[in-house]
């Protein structure tokens, strides 16, 4: 630690820190534009010039390392003169369009111009003009003329997003920020450039000209999408969500948001929003009062319970539902006498149920990811499924960590990957067993008798050997199972192997939570117990009645075909949804429920952090928070214990006794199956859920749907497979699974393992197909 004096205040700061950081510690503000604590130092705006004693000229505080005994003046005559001079330069070419600028009211340049700018410009010449460019549906460069060339957006791309999509081309007064020859900015983190831009040069396209910043009310909330639980500030105007920006939380999203979290709010105001309860009578949908709709549901459920038995009712919810909603849903079901309730709709292997010590979770804190030096990522579309967790792992890799991948698809992770083993889904277990066996040899540790006998016929290939070598050389190892591994038909075997690898390499072992409440669903008890049916069973053994909470049966489930058949064959389907969606084809009642912005609720994120939030706006039309709907249903069905006044009461009941001790990834009494070389006839399906198809809200976010990531999925196969079929990249092929087929374009991807076809799930274009894993047939169209 060293001591420096800033404006007469003594500050202790660590060696190597810059003057601007030391000043921040002391609560002294130094004006700046290009400096950002999360980005590298550029020192190109010169706004932070300060006077340092014994230095002959003003020095930039962001790039001047603090030294012991240094005396800094931030407001001396020399400093202020320098700052005013810089401001005059910055304003020479900056247009005076603050009255129509989206950044107006929250603009660093505007604020600092008030403090340091002149009232009048000495500059009479023409200002430079920069033509706008189209860089995609999310970020607008319409007013690039406003740019002050701080290069924050460029550095963000290089250092945080991992891909340099924007750059500063040309020189001097011709310099401008642009992308390479009109290409679009496709990063899944691109929206952060809007926040970083200290002026109004990069603005939000969806938000453009819809509100001034001072007209907005700000409400804290939590992201309902991925397992991270990013902290949001929901900005509202006239009872409508106008935009979403991050709230800084160093432990979770830092100061970033993924584009999914940031722009999904457009779905809240989508035209498909359901505003009134609806009943289907004689094949026609009628808008009805809540009372009528709820009584219809209660009577229907009671009838089925009395005639066929309560076990013929099943409840399915998405893991994006709140803790309170999931809690009341399972309570309602159990109160009626049915144990059929589940929220793990895309999972296919439930053999670990009842054998878990606790709630599966990340196994470490989110912030801990940055400190790991070895990663083994099993079955994860990391970047698209967990954009900000990927960012943390990218940061760790940048600091010298090694990441190894075992997966069935080789997507660009925008970071150097140490070793990869990309194999067909059927060989994933074998591949992981190879890593385990190799690791045991390297560590000279005997495997448990069970693992020993299970892996006896496993032959270690060089790829697995390299991964094991990498893991064995680490001190702080993390073994993580992604969405793909959790949805895999042998998910439990994968988990057991991963856990064995973790214990051999002294690693933390965890699951990357698929959705906002993947942990919360377990805590809420929304899983079957005592002979109840899980999500897969409920659809495989069709029930007479289904309660759907936020579920779009053909998009949110593991086997869309089977789910649709079950829905169509049911006597009664109650769809609780914020949207009028495909359920109109199979449901009997549509109950309009409030999305996250219109209800209070709680999400428990992937590390087990409980985060409650309140509604930001009133529910649209007659939509009501789902917990209230479920409470009334409970009352109508005379289920005891449904006297909640508030969502907090539900939460407190659910969280009584909840602590991190309940988080445990260990399994008890599940045996490793003997592993042999898998043989598979035909093509195996590899399916991801595209980033902007993962839940009902984001599917209706108009701007996100215009991005490259939201393009209609193509079938991606190894070129040798294409040659076998006699088709070429770009051709249309017929893809068949079960009794349905769809036509899709095909594209050659030699990183895709031979014998597999990648076909996305969760998308309308592939919703007619069957299970996310298994055999799929591709032929010439």
């Amino acid at each position, binding site marked *: 630690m060293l001591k420096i004096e800033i404006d007469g205040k003594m500050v202790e700061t660590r060696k190597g820190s810059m003057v601007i950081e030391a000043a921040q510690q002391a609560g002294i503000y130094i004006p700046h534009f290009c400096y950002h604590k999360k980005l590298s130092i550029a020192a190109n705006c010169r706004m932070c010039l300060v006077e340092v004693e014994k230095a002959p000229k003003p020095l930039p505080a962001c790039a001047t390392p603090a030294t012991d005994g240094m005396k800094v003046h931030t407001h001396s005559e020399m400093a202020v003169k320098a700052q005013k001079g810089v401001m005059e330069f910055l304003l020479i070419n900056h247009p005076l369009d603050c009255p129509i600028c989206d950044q107006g009211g929250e603009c660093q340049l505007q604020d600092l111009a008030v403090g340091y700018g002149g009232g009048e410009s000495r500059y009479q010449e023409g200002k430079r003009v920069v033509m706008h460019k189209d860089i995609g549906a999310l970020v607008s460069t319409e007013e690039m003329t406003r740019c002050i060339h701080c290069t924050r957006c460029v550095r963000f791309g*290089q250092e945080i997003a991992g*891909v*340099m*999509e*924007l*750059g*500063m*081309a*040309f*020189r001097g007064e011709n310099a401008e920020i642009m*992308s*390479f*020859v009109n290409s679009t900015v496709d990063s899944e983190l691109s929206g952060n450039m809007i926040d970083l831009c200290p002026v109004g040069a990069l603005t939000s396209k969806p938000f453009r000209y819809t509100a001034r910043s001072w007209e907005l009310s700000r409400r804290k909330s939590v992201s309902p999408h991925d397992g991270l639980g990013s902290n949001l500030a929901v900005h509202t105007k006239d009872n409508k969500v106008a935009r979403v920006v991050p709230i800084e939380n160093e432990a979770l999203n830092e100061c970033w948001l993924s584009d999914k979290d940031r722009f999904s709010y457009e779905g809240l105001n989508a035209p498909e929003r359901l505003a009134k309860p609806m009943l289907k009578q004689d094949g026609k949908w009628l808008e009805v009062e809540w009372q009528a709709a709820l009584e219809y549901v209660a009577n229907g459920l009671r009838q089925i319970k009395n005639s066929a038995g309560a076990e013929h009712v099943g409840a399915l919810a998405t893991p994006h539902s709140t803790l309170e909603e999931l809690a009341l849903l399972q309570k309602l079901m159990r109160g009626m006498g049915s144990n059929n309730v589940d929220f793990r709709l895309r999972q296919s292997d439930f053999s670990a149920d009842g054998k878990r010590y606790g709630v599966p979770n990340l196994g470490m804190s989110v912030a801990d990811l940055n400190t790991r030096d070895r990663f083994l990522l099993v079955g994860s579309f990391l970047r698209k499924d967990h954009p900000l967790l990927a960012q943390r792992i990218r940061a760790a890799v940048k600091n010298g960590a090694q990441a190894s991948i075992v997966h069935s698809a080789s997507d660009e992770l925008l970071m150097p990957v140490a070793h990869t083993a990309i194999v067909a889904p059927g060989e994933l277990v074998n591949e992981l067993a190879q890593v385990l066996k190799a690791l045991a040899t390297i560590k000279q540790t005997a495997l448990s008798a069970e693992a020993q006998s299970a892996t006896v016929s496993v032959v270690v290939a060089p790829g697995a050997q390299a991964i094991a070598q990498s893991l064995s050389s680490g001190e702080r190892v993390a073994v993580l199972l992604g969405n793909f591994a959790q949805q895999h038909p042998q998910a439990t075997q994968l988990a057991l192997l991963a856990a064995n690898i973790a214990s051999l390499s002294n690693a933390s072992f965890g699951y990357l939570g698929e959705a906002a409440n993947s942990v919360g669903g377990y805590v809420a008890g929304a899983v079957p117990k005592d002979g109840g049916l899980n999500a897969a069973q409920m659809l495989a053994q069709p029930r007479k009645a289904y309660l759907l909470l936020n579920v779009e049966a053909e998009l949110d489930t593991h086997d869309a075909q089977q789910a649709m058949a079950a829905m169509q064959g049911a006597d009664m389907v109650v769809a609780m949804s914020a949207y009028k969606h495909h359920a109109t084809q199979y449901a009997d009642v549509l109950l309009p429920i409030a999305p996250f912005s219109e209800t209070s609720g709680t999400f428990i994120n992937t590390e087990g952090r409980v985060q409650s939030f309140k509604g930001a706006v009133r529910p649209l039309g007659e939509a009501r928070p789902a917990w209230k709907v479920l409470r009334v249903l409970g009352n109508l069905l005379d289920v005891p214990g449904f006297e909640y006044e508030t969502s907090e009461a539900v939460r407190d009941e659910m969280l009584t006794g909840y602590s991190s001790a309940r988080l445990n990834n260990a399994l008890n009494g599940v045996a490793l199956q003997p592993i042999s070389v898998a043989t598979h006839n035909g093509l195996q399906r590899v399916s991801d859920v595209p980033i902007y198809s993962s839940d009902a809200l984001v599917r209706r976010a108009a701007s996100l749907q215009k991005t490259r990531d939201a393009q209609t999925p193509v079938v991606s196969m190894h070129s040798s497979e294409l040659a076998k079929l006699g088709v070429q990249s770009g051709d249309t092929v017929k893809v068949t699974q079960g009794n349905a087929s769809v036509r899709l374009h095909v594209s050659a991807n030699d990183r895709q393992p031979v014998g597999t076809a990648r076909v996305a799930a969760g998308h309308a274009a592939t919703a007619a197909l069957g299970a996310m894993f298994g055999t799929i047939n591709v032929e010439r169209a």
Partner: protein
Amino acid sequence: MLSAHIQDQINRELIKYPADQRQSAVMAALRFVQDEKGWISNDDMTDIAAFLGMPHMAVYEVATFYHMYNLKPMGRHTLTVCTNLSCTLCGALDTVSYIENKLGIGIGEVTADGKFGLREGECMGACIDAPLLTINNKKLCGRMTPQKIDAMLAELDKS
């Protein structure tokens, strides 16, 4: 695709730099492309980016920053006239307009037969011989007078 010759040249250049700093060779790589093709297209930049393992935007930044790179075809002989202060004081603007009239093109243009292109340049570091111009960024010509320009153009016209 970069030609085998260019790839050889870049590989030789890469020996000068640490193995994990391949992008250090970007300026040389751009030069090799321009030497061979006369100018650098966006496709060439993409190829260089792939060859050196750097973002194509970063190549574009470098190519647009330095004025000696031609981002469009600039004729077989690109004449670059310095118009910085010293040269201008010594009559560089007259040099420019003499060449413009003689060739019938303006700055940034190429003659119809594709032989000559004219560009404006930055200080060439030989102000003692102002006004200066370069031929294809390789040959520096000083104290340009109409007579010397005529002789130079006639000489170049032959090749």
